[in-house]
């Protein structure tokens, strides 16, 4: 009796997932019309501070262990917020890059660079989110996600280069 129950439940879950996907697709269809409205602001300097190993070491030495764990959890939660914003922006910029890929050769090359960077950043951001959530569970564990900031800035540079060749309606300002 267990196998048919599992299969029926799995089918129901797949149907719900597909329905949500179709609805989500309909809702996000306008992202390319006004990409800057959908991008989330990321303060790279604040993110660097939150994930700075020297800052973490300083707090570890200055605070009582329980207090350090509480503060570190809050810092990592804030960092995870930034990383999820970065991941969401990377997904939108992937689509922007795709949309610009087939125009002039110069734009096409910048768009290709943006796609590659946004893709790598999205992949890295997802890994970083896992690391950060593990860090929230074990706040004593050292967390290293500093490369996110570098890659995010690299992506911003590609957006600007692309924007110089193809107007992107304030996309880089929104980043």
């Amino acid at each position, binding site marked *: 009796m267990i196998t048919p129950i599992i*299969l029926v439940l799995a089918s129901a879950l797949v149907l719900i997932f597909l329905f949500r996907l179709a609805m989500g697709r309909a809702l996000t269809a306008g992202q390319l019309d006004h990409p800057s409205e959908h991008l989330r602001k990321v303060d790279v300097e604040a993110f660097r501070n939150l994930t700075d190993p020297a800052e973490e070491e300083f707090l570890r030495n200055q605070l009582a262990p329980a207090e350090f764990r509480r503060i570190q959890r809050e810092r990592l939660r804030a960092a995870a917020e930034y990383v999820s914003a970065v991941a969401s922006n990377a997904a939108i910029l992937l689509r922007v890059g795709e949309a610009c890929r*087939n125009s002039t050769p110069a734009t096409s090359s910048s768009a290709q660079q943006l796609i590659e960077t946004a893709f790598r950043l999205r992949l890295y951001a997802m890994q970083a989110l896992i690391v950060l959530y593990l860090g929230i569970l074990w706040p004593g564990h050292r967390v290293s996600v500093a490369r996110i900031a570098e890659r995010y800035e690299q992506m911003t540079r590609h957006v600007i280069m692309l924007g*110089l060749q193809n107007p992107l309606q304030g996309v880089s300002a929104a980043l």
Partner: protein
Amino acid sequence: MHWLRLMLDGLWVLTPMLESVLVVAMVRRRVFVRFPVFFAYVVADACFTAVMFVMDKLPSVSGPAWTRVYFPGLVILSALQFTVVWEVFDHIFRVHSFLNRFGKPLFRTALVAFFLAGITAAAFTRTHEAYPTMAILHLLQQTASILLVGLLGSLFIFSAFFGLSWRSFVFGIALGMGSDAAVNLAAAAIKEYFGLSGSIYLNLLTQGSSNLSVLIWVFYLFMPDTTGGNGNMKNLSQPDLEDWNQELREISRR
């Protein structure tokens, strides 16, 4: 029960009619050139469903004769379905060239993983079906549906993870096929366990789901594409080079 039988017949007849509409629309929009396997699948399914309906209503056609046509037809259609899924994979990974290296490995891994899942589910399924032929048929349908749902589900999850945009019609093909496979999976599992081959309710459910999937394909065929991809993004103002240069300078200073 008479009206339920009428309803089932109506849904049965409706499938090839809707598929004919889709075929004509695909030809008129020349979409069949981009999706030849899917086109072949829709044509084959329309012919198969129509032939099976006529054979079912002809008193001169015996049950075994009907089954002799039904089984090979089902095998051919299932093979075509998997080729359509491959066509969808190929299309997605060709459009997103930076993902090219992931396409084949993802398809192969998902194929092996869900084939094993299908075999395991079949091994653990206890049948209460009175007819051995039908029991085998439901088990095969269940395994094929697990594979289809698994392959399409992997593709949906993978593209959701990277926030990939799908061209409307490719999304529609995958959505229609995935939802139909999910309903068929549930129906095959229930039929197999409870021995309900002849259940009119389950047959209504699967036939209705087939029609719904064709409607989904028709809807997405006529839906405008929202993915862009031609470099002409909508509502974009003229570049303000001074602003861009200012931003570039700020970034360089960091």
